[in-house]
């Protein structure tokens, strides 16, 4: 079953990191291929003709696009180990809801924090923290969003942790000061090998953001 798993990815992508974590949790051997997004490979364009984006998971020649789709696919195919989605249907719906919340909010707000200044940046910072606080509320006193066990929502959110340092530097604020519980959760996740190996180094992410700012002419 593990025959022919390929991941087309880009090292700083928090979406790619989700899939890397899921593959690592399930101990699936795969080929990682780094894409140059300014010069996308023929394979990427062929496997994701609609969006032309990474990550793309290719299993036995067939592409699965969109990171949350990939995590669910991995969970459904390799269903004999390390379950990511809960067995209970209501808890599963709840997990999907919160992963969808992360998708709808966190990336765009985070991007606004490093791309903008002044009032726009302040508004983005405020809304970003409000969203993280909602997530803290959902986490409650649990070890993970999945409860006792690391699960789907943890996978969906934790990759953003390696981008927090860049957001903080660009936005001149401390996420830990506002959301200590969430940072404690993230550090707990980082103790898992699947997470530590899949996330990029936060200093490298910050360097990458500075490079992007130069390229886009943002101060």
């Amino acid at each position, binding site marked *: 079953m593990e025959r022919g798993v390929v991941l087309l990815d880009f090292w700083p992508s928090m979406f790619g990191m989700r899939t890397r974590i899921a593959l690592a949790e399930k101990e699936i051997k795969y080929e990682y291929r780094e894409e140059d997004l300014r010069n996308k490979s023929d394979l990427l364009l062929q496997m994701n003709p*609609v969006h032309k984006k990474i990550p793309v998971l290719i*299993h036995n020649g*067939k592409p*699965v*696009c*969109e990171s949350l*789709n*990939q995590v*669910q*696919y991995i969970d*459904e*195919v390799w269903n004999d180990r390390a379950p990511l989605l809960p067995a209970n*249907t*209501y808890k*599963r*719906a*709840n997990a*999907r*809801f919160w992963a*969808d*919340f992360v998708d709808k909010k966190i990336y765009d707000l985070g991007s606004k924090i490093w791309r903008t200044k002044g009032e726009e940046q302040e508004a983005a910072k405020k809304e970003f923290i409000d969203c993280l606080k*909602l997530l803290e509320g959902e986490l409650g006193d649990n070890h993970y969003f999945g409860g006792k066990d690391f699960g789907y929502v943890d996978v969906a959110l934790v990759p953003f942790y390696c981008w927090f340092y860049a957001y903080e530097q660009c936005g001149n604020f401390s996420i830990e000061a506002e959301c200590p519980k969430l940072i404690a959760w993230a550090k707990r996740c980082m103790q898992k090998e699947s997470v530590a190996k899949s996330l990029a180094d936060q200093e490298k992410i910050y360097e990458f953001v500075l490079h992007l700012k130069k390229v886009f002419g943002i101060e």
Partner: protein
Amino acid sequence: MADQVKLFGMWASPYSRRVELALKLKGIPYEYIEEDLSNKSSLLLKYNPVHQKIPVLVHNGKSIPESLVILEYIDETWRNNPVLLPQDPYERSMARFWAKFVDEKILITTRMVSFTTGKEQEQAIEELTEQLKLLENELKGKPYFAGEAIGYLDIVVANFLVFWFRNLQEALGINMFTEEKFPIIFEWTEKLVKIKVVEECRIPKEKHLVYIRTRLEALKSASK
């Protein structure tokens, strides 16, 4: 204990209608609560505090918001026919992919078509045509998006495109979604409306046209 199912919805919302269609197809009895979106009920705000939107399904007191999440919940909880999502994980990932494509990409383009004029609108119409052709391609060689019988993606596409967008284009005075351009989707529509519950779940056309025209006018005067 008998199942208690409530749906907080809004008559003109394709997202709300898609949940109703899923419930009706599965023969699940439910109580429908119409929400006035300009004056949201305290119950709606209690059941969907994060987004404060419809539709929200409440099953034995537990709330599930977000229409695509609700559809999967319905399918997993009531396992009777029709089974809405494919059994095969790859086919399932494709259904989810195209549903997101409708809700994220096609929605944005239809907004551009609605709120722009002249050249900008022409470009938006061109982009929408391309997106619809991609969708139509998924239907080739199959009676339904889901295969031999109506399923998840049929429900999503039918409510958004066929029952909502066709009215929208009439209200806007454009005619881009035609049988000529999209023969396969039109043939599929004809098949769908023969299913009694599908016809029952359609947004009532005349009422919808008035609603759309009023909203467009309000938005246009607000932006002046």
